[in-house]
């Protein structure tokens, strides 16, 4: 699934990054960055309600190219600047975590993002 499809499914707003043709095959929903680092495979979409620079840092270390902030969360300028600097695409959706994950799974994003 391409990022532009994810934006449609979640009625999301793109806050950082441009490459909406980026292909995503799996996703992970977590507010705990250490768990993301412990269990996630490459190239997932990260859904999180945590709004902090460490989300972008974690994405960078994990080669995660796209992040969705759920529950309508909008990170500050500093987080978005960091995302732009690190090449991490950032979106926000008003959907809560469970609904956002469900919508994406239902739309075909069914790859197993964790081991």
């Amino acid at each position, binding site marked *: 699934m391409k990022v532009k499809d994810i934006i449609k499914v979640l009625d999301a707003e793109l806050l950082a990054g441009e490459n909406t043709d980026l292909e995503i095959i799996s996703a992970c929903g977590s*507010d*705990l*960055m*250490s*768990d993301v*680092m*412990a269990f996630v495979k*490459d190239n997932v979409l990260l859904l*999180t309600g*945590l709004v*902090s*620079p*460490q*989300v972008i*840092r*974690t994405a*960078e*270390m*994990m*080669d995660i190219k796209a992040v969705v902030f759920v529950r309508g969360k909008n990170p500050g300028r*500093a987080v978005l600047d960091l995302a732009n600097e*690190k090449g991490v695409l950032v979106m926000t959706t008003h959907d809560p975590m469970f609904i956002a994950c469900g919508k994406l799974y239902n739309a075909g994003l069914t790859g197993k993002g964790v081991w």
Partner: protein
Amino acid sequence: MEKGLLKLHYIIPANDLTCAGEASSNVKKKLIQLGIDPALIKKTSISMYEAEINAVIHANGGEANVEIDNEKIKICISDHGPGIPDVELAMQEGYSTASDEVREMGFGAGMGLPNIKRYADDLKIETEVGRGTALTITVYI
């Protein structure tokens, strides 16, 4: 690399969670430039990042010394913090002494040291209560 060895040194600033990870980010960039296998880069980056976060949140920062040669990447993160009274306990997943502020940043769930052990090929912990801690992480190339 001169004589097959590259040395890098970073200061890890105290109590600055917004900057935590900058040293790891720099090392990751350097490893990419050196053409190291991406899987090894990831192992190294995650291990170092968790150790860097630990130094910031538990020990008022510290320093990172990185050595890269043809056989291995060796990272030593040292601090002058409170030390770890019970290393075996600290290695258990879920055990944490982190503050609420740290938890709000998505860490402090007791996964730091276990994650480092998970990804490092070798992990040496030298710690003394009241004196500080030094983690030596080795990833073989």
